[in-house]
């Protein structure tokens, strides 16, 4: 993410000049998730249930795979208020989870891009 100054414009130019091998922003992966893997990929597990999220009044945008950690953090925040500094661990935990989610999205994008390049190459040849 520190290379945003080089890779953001690069993405833009690649998308403009080579749209066939550059996925757009927030692309939904089009290939079979199992493509190119030797074994079976681990499935992502959602820990917080719908009822929990609803009773915690989580906004829809926060109901992702880190929701249980957010609920933990919010609970701690409420219990320890106003000494919320003690929820540092919960917060750190949640933000790390979001970071991993971000990295996973980057990986998905890169996988999509490489598979596009591969199919494009085979189609041309």
């Amino acid at each position, binding site marked *: 993410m520190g290379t945003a100054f080089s890779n953001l414009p690069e993405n833009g130019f690649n998308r403009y000049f080579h749209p066939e091998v550059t996925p757009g922003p927030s692309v939904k992966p089009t290939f079979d998730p199992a493509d190119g893997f030797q074994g079976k990929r681990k499935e992502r597990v959602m820990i917080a249930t719908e009822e929990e999220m609803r009773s915690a009044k989580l906004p829809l945008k926060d109901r992702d*795979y880190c929701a249980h950690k957010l609920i933990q953090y919010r609970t701690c925040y409420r219990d320890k208020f106003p000494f919320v500094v003690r929820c540092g661990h919960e917060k750190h935990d949640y933000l790390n989870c979001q970071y991993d989610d971000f990295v996973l999205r980057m990986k998905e994008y890169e996988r999509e891009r490489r598979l596009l390049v591969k199919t494009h190459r085979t189609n041309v040849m």
Partner: protein
Amino acid sequence: MIYVSVRNHWNKDYAPAPFPKTQEERLAAIEKYQVMPSQYKPYEDDGSGCGDYPNLPIVSGDARDPFYPWDHPETKRNFGELIHAEEEMYAEHRYDISARLRVPIRLQVLQTVGVMLGLFTIYCCLENVKFFHSLAEKQYPKPGEKHYTFELE
């Protein structure tokens, strides 16, 4: 005088006399304003209300010499000096009519238009080149949809 300036802000002596039509009136005005007879030139009698007040050359406050020992250095004026009828337009904190610009005004306009046009050109060229993070769609758990990590079982 304090009463006049505080309560009424004005008295009849502040107003100029009517426009001088005869030579006597003209001489009276010259005597009143203490100007050189050759330099006395009243405003035109076009209803602007300046009467016999002399039409002085405009010298902005900024253009007056700051090192001259003025009687009132803060306004750069001498005691009893005639002030321009529109002095409040050309005081030091107002418009400087005799300014000598470092960059001529035409060049300034050109610079502004040039910068704006340059930016607009860049904007037009990059209109279809949108920068974005290389990120796939954010994954939300939904019924009937499966998401995977990059680890193997």
